[in-house]
């Protein structure tokens, strides 16, 4: 059974002038259907304004579709009565870590979610400890969040979501503000949660190397899903992605440029290791 099942979702932003008359309508999500199964790692790509973030906000009922149906863990996300359960199944992490940390101390921040859910005291502590360990931040449990780096704060945010035991985590450009190692640490934490705890991941990103980690990629354009497939299927279409204001991972670009120069190298290379291997084969011939 799908954890998230979306059928023909439509969402529009309506601009009004000072008198409240409609000035314009932007269809941000236009007839989107998709499924996310338990434990699946999904990446959503798309240029600025393509509707990725608007779509993502549907998954934990921050906004409701105007048309279409959305089932989250079997519950209709549009029903007011289901909102609480939907948000417990699907947690969300945003771009700027400073906007989502509220605790004075790391462990307090992580405990905020489960406390709000009415979890018992001992159980909260258990969850705080296991969540912090899962993102490799247990050693910082007594720290003030403002003494942490961006990557560390972002991992605390993820632990805060983890402590609510969600089935799925949606991350909206979680690494955009981080330095390279902060990025890597956050991605390692995400992959680990996905593999070890079987939590579904929906990662919105502009970084093509991050998208390579996903099981499946959706590419959005003008509110619609323009392409979907495995990273290898998606990134082998360099020219099409570039037209959509996107890019491909660096290994794929270099392989593409070499092909254009007549080097017989596979089109679907994704990583540095694969590129080195393919070139070594060529060289030994």
């Amino acid at each position, binding site marked *: 059974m799908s954890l998230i099942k979306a059928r023909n979702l439509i969402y529009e932003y309506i601009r009004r002038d000072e008198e409240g008359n409609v000035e314009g309508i932007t269809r941000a999500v236009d007839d989107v259907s998709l499924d996310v199964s338990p434990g699946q790692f999904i990446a959503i790509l798309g240029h600025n304004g393509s509707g990725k973030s608007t779509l993502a906000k549907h998954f934990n009922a921050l906004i409701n579709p105007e048309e279409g149906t959305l089932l989250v863990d079997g519950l209709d996300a549009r029903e007011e009565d289901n909102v609480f359960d939907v948000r417990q199944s699907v947690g969300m992490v945003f771009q700027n870590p400073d906007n989502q940390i509220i605790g004075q101390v790391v462990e307090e921040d992580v405990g905020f979610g489960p406390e709000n859910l009415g979890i018992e005291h001992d159980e909260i502590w258990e969850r705080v400890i296991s969540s912090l360990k899962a993102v490799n931040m247990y050693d910082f449990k007594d720290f003030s969040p403002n003494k942490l780096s961006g990557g560390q704060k972002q991992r605390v945010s993820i632990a805060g979501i983890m402590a609510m035991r969600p089935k799925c985590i949606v991350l909206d450009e979680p690494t955009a503000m981080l330095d390279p190692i902060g990025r890597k640490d956050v991605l390692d934490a995400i992959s680990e949660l996905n593999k070890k705890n079987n939590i579904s991941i929906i990662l919105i990103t502009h970084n093509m190397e991050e998208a390579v980690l996903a099981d499946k990629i959706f590419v959005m354009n003008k509110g619609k899903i323009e392409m979907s497939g495995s990273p290898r299927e998606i990134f082998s279409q360099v020219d099409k992605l570039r037209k959509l204001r*996107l890019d491909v991972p660096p290994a794929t670009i270099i392989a593409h440029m070499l092909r254009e120069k007549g080097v017989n190298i596979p089109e679907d290379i994704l990583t540095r290791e694969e590129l080195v291997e393919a070139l070594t084969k060529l060289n030994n011939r």
Partner: protein
Amino acid sequence: MKIIIDHLTHKYEKGTSHEVVAFEDVNIVIEEGQFVCLIGHTGCGKSTLIQHLNGILKPDSGTIYYNGEDIFEKGYDLRSLRQKVGLVFQYPEHQLFGETCFSDVCYGPLNMGLSKKEAELRSYEVMKLVGIDDEIFYQSPFNLSGGQKRKVAIAGILAMRPEVLILDEPTAGLDPLGQKEIFNLIKKIQKETNLTIILVSHSMEDVANYADKIVVMNHGHVLYNDEPKKVFAHYDELEKIGLKAPFASYLMADLSKKGFDVDTNITTNEEAVSEILHALGR
């Protein structure tokens, strides 16, 4: 025009038990027309440092010479310095407030005391320079895409005709083409107007492609201050301080280990392709 950062030190909450050294004894010389990139892990003091360059923050010791003059000396005209050294903060689109893009860009020059006509003339010129279409001029900046908003924000600074443009992570949060457009735009402005560019970035690929010089900061100290190739040759050290080298550098190192005859000091994808073609004997 030349900027000399001379033994500059800045501490937060100095003299209290919470004293934190933002950076210490920083010495950097920036020549006119240079494209300088400042890199370092989050919290290394980059953003604090650039806010000294137009006198928003004051150092605890050391000073900065702009055109040979000490900007922190009593009586120095900081107001006119701030027109010469334009600072584009992180997420500059959050600072847009004009009713239309055009009025937003005009705000800076009007504030400098220029006539309405002169301010509009300059604004028109820079909006053309950054590539904003006429049809967007009278739209609200809040209806634009992320990349367009950022161009409007940069135009607002350029309209003051600065000699130095400082940008703090100008591409964060933009889609890949948007990132490329902003970098190409900055490079074009540097070439066409001989503006000095100082840019903070976490994207090593972009830094390698565009910078004349890279300054690497770590825990408030300058670790390297050199041209890109020489800086990225230290990729082991860079990784230890939360950074890395561009993809092409790692690729060349791997290929070299596999017996390919390639130059391991290159930093861009284009260079990597020509090295590989050469090594394959084509």
